[in-house]
Every structure is written in structure tokens, then in C-alpha cells.
């Protein structure tokens, strides 16, 4: 059904203006539902829109940004964001890749069953399962501590101690996202023709060498793309830290996006919230440009 072949390069480079009609919905969405809020966000970040200046706010230049760069929280929040994004990415992406490789083995029975079971974390609405996890990780009566009690480990304050809180949110995020990466990588790995693996086997390659000499080189841009966008998605993943720890204890699990939300909606400082969001975007933008320069991952788009 899905016959795959080398895409024939469309040499016909003539610009087709009628095609703009085809993508009109996309253009409208881009203009009104994306660019407009972004511009408005940029504009808010340059004003003093807050509860004291709710209707009569005005332009204050970069005052919000200079406040942020002078505040002691910024460093902690950015460090948290990095720990959270990098920590999540380095466990979930390789785990997904590993499971995809294991499931791609020939003559392995029960692939279908395993894959169905892996659907569970992905298929249940995340905001439900995050709250389930928050109950499972509760210090008193949480099932995780109960189970640890069985093997004689005393209860751990998973969500309320600064030592474990970040670990816990990364762990829950891992549970939430590894199936997605398993599926993505399964699709990528399956696109490698079997003959290449057989050729590698005939050449005497072991599993490890097949991985490093065949699979990875063929998929390097896919891996880069999935990893980098996984990183970005995690960076902007609001629900996990917000629902599990609310950024606490202290600000030990506060990431840029939850902090932006806190500023905007808890302190009613909408301008400062917008400024935090802009800072987050700028960091990501630089990150994408730099990584794309080295990995050329964007080239899988065209």
C-alpha cells in the first residue's frame, strides 16, 4: 500500500501563485493565530501591563527585561529548564530508540502485544495521568512509597524535596513520552531496507557495529531532528511541572514557561510573564539555528 521510493525531485521550479489559495488556511492561521499573538506578546513585554496598570498601561522599553536580568531567580530558572529539558531528552529519546531497535529484530514474537501495551501512556490524556502520578508519588499513602516500603526502603518525599522533585518530574515525563519516541523511531528504523542489515550481518558486524555503522549513519538526521524537537517540546512542556510540583519546592522545579505563567497569572504581572516567554523563545531560536547549522536536521523537511 505505502510504496516507498526515492521522491522524484520536482524540477519544475516555476512559482505557482494559485497554490497560495491551497495553503490559504495555513497562511491565515499563521497570520492571525500565531503571528498576532506573538507580536502582541512582544508588545506586552515592552509595557507595564500589570494589575496596577491594568487599563492604562504604557510603553516602558526594556524595563521588564532589565528587571529580569537583574533578578536572582533567572539563573536558577534557566538552569532548571536546562536540567529538565536535557535530563528528559537524554532518557526518553535513547529509550525510545532502544525499544524501537529491540522490537525491530527479526523473529521476535509478540511485537504487536508490546506495542499495544506501550500505547497506554501515550493514549491516556496526559493531564489525567500526571495527576495519577502525583497521587502515586505522594509521600503518605502513595503507592510508590508503599511499594518501596515492601523492600525496606523508607518513604521518599518525591515531589516535595528539592533533591527528588526534579528527578520525579523527569521520571513522570519519561513515562509519558517514551512511547511516542518508540513509535517515531520504529517508523524510522523500519524505513531501512532489510538488505542493509543482512549485508552487515554477512560482513560480520555484531549488533553494536550494525548500530553504529549502519543504523545510526543512515538515520543521523532523523535522530537529530527527533532529539532536537523532543528537547524543544520538553522545554515548553508546561503541564508536567505545573501539575506535579507547581514549580516547588521553592523554585527548584520552576522552568521558564511555568515561571512565565506564575508571573502573569499569580502576580498579575502580564508584561513580565510575556518577557519571560520571549526570553525562552529567543534561547530556543538560537539553539535551533546553531544545532541546525551542525546537524542539517531541517533538511528532512524538504
Amino acid at each position, binding site marked *: 500500500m505505502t510504496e516507498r521510493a526515492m521522491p522524484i525531485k520536482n524540477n519544475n521550479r516555476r512559482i505557482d501563485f494559485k497554490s497560495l489559495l491551497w495553503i490559504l488556511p*495555513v497562511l491565515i492561521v499563521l497570520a492571525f493565530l500565531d503571528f498576532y499573538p506573538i507580536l502582541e506578546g512582544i508588545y506586552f513585554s515592552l509595557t507595564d501591563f500589570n494589575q496596577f496598570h491594568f487599563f492604562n498601561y504604557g510603553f516602558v522599553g526594556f524595563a521588564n527585561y532589565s528587571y529580569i536580568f537583574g533578578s536572582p531567580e533567572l539563573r536558577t530558572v534557566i538552569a532548571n529548564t536546562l536540567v529538565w529539558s536535557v535530563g528528559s531528552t537524554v532518557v526518553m529519546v535513547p529509550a525510545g530508540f532502544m*525499544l524501537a531497535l529491540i522490537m525491530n529484530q527479526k523473529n521476535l514474537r509478540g511485537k504487536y502485544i508490546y506495542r499495544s501495551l506501550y500505547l497506554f501512556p501515550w493514549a491516556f490524556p496526559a493531564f489525567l495521568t500526571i495527576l495519577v502520578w502525583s497521587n502515586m508519588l505522594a509521600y503518605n499513602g502513595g*503507592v510508590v512509597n508503599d511499594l518501596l516500603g515492601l523492600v525496606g526502603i523508607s518513604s521518599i518525599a518525591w515531589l516535595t524535596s528539592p533533591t527528588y522533585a526534579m528527578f520525579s518530574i523527569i521520571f513522570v515525563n519519561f513515562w509519558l513520552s517514551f512511547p511516542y519516541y518508540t513509535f*517515531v523511531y520504529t*517508523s524510522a528504523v523500519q524505513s531501512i531496507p532489510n538488505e542493509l542489515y543482512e549485508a552487515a550481518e554477512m560482513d560480520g558486524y555484531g549488533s553494536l557495529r550494525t548500530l553504529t555503522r549502519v543504523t545510526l549513519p543512515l538515520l543521523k538526521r532523523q535522530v537529530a531532528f527527533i532529539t532536537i524537537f523532543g528537547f524543544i517540546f520538553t522545554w515548553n512542556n508546561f503541564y508536567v511541572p505545573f501539575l506535579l510540583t507547581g514549580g516547588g519546592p521553592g523554585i527548584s522545579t520552576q522552568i521558564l514557561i511555568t515561571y512565565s505563567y506564575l508571573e502573569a497569572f499569580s502576580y498579575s504581572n502580564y508584561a513580565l510573564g510575556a518577557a519571560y516567554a520571549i526570553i525562552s523563545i529567543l534561547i530556543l531560536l538560537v539553539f535551533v539555528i546553531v544545532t541546525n547549522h551542525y546537524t542539517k536536521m531541517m533538511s528532512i523537511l524538504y
Partner: protein
Amino acid sequence: MENKYSKKEKVQRREEVDVFRMNNYYKNIRTLKKIASHLVLILFALFAVFPIYYVVITSLNSIGSLSASSLADLLPNTKMTLVNYSQIIFQHPFFIWLRNTLILTVASTFIGVMLSITSGLAMSRLNVPAKRMLLYMLLILSLFPFTMMVIPFYFMFSNFHLLNTYLGLIIPYSAGAVIYSTYLIKNYVDGLPTSYEEAAQMDGLSKAGALFRILVPMARPVIVFAAVLAFMGPYTDYALAGQFISSPSLYTLAIGMYYVSQGSITMNYGTYAAFSVLMGIPIFILFFVFQKYLVSGFSLSMYK
């Protein structure tokens, strides 16, 4: 013994023994590898399923509070009851919430996928001006956090008098679906040979006709996949619906769940679990039925 065989014979014999050993060795390695693979897969499967099992079993228990539960409650037992489910279904307008959710999700999935089929085909097959820039933009938009969008969205939709209406939610939901699905469909269609739609053009269809009548059926896996994802977003959304909907007659399941679990004087844990199960099951069935499309729907093939 030692002198029974000549040296040459000895070597030969040793080789025979070695070959036998080696064969066994490789056989064992293969078995070990298989066992290890299954072990890893089973561990991850347990990890994946346990929280869901936990929520299902809790929803069947009548424990009011978390600290009253014990490990014994994790196993099926005689105290099981469906009271939590009956509470949700009969004491709250559950079916109205379900209806609202279905109206929103089905409409926005349909609109979003229809529009993204058109634009995905165009992005793949037509010479859209500044195509590459548009593609970059679509992706770079994923860098923007939603917290920044909430207030501007509210202002805009308030201006158009779209708050507290179905349309006011269908528009942003389908817009969100359009962005992601366009990119998915574009990527998938890129992997299909152009000769199919060319053949259709030779058979008498116009370019547009060929794209729609030939490529759309061929891109069914990705369209189904995009539809599943497009369904998932509005179905589970709380942030936007919570902002835009203030009239109880328009509550969605997600808001209703918030209402049930937060609204009762203290959060009834079993009720919450039961609601989670009720809400999760449709999505899970959807994912399960379309499972094969979830793998083939991603089009990150190596040729790209």
C-alpha cells in the same frame, strides 16, 4: 590416551569439538539475546501499564481518601463497586459534557484535517512561493509557549464575540491541527512517487483532481494519524476551554472533570479515578484501532 592419536588427528579432533562448541555457543547467544530483549520489553510494558492499572483499580474501589488505601487494594477484591462511575454518570450532566466534547472534537478534527490535506498536498506537490520559509515558520512556531498566547487569544476572540461558543473553540483547535497535520501530510506525500498523480492526469484528471482522488487515498495512513492527533488535542484540552467557556451548558469533559474532582468539597479520589478511566478509554480505543497507522503515519523515512 595421549598417544592414541597422532598429532594431526588430535588437531582434527579438537577442531571438531570446537565446531560443536561454537555452534552451541552461538545458539546460546541467540537465545540469551532473545531472553534479554523480552526482559527489557516486558519491564517497559509493566512500567507503561502500571499507572493505568492503578487508576482503573482505584476507580473500582470505594476508598474515599488516598491515605486510607493500602497495597492490598491494588489487587482485585470483594470491596469493588461501580459507585464512582454511577456517581459521575447519574449525578452530573456527564452526557451533556460528552456531547459538547464530541461536537468540538469531531468538528475541529474534520475541519483541521480537511484543510491540512489541501495545504499538505500543496506544500508537497505545488510550487508554493517561499515554500521553504513557510516550512521553517511552521516548525519554528512550535517554539512558542502557549502561556504567551492565552491572553492575546482571549482578546481576539472576545473582539469577534466568539467566547462561550462552539465556534470560538473549534477555530483555534482546528488551527492547531492544521499546522501540525500540514507538516505531517506534506512529509508523507513527499515520499510517494509523483507518477501516480501523473498517471491520473494522463487518465483525464486535472492536477487538483489527481492530487485529491489519487494521493488522498494513498496517504490514508498519515491522514488517519493526523486525525487521531487532531482529535486528541481538543479532547484533553483544559487550558483554552477553561478560558473561553464560562457557561455550564458548554462544559467539556475536561472542564467537567475539573468540576467534579475540585467541586465536591474535597477531592474524592475514586471519583477522580473513575472519571479518568471514562475519559481515557475512548482515546485508548482510538489509538488501539489505528495502531498500525501510528507507525506508518510518521514519515521520517531514510530517503528524506
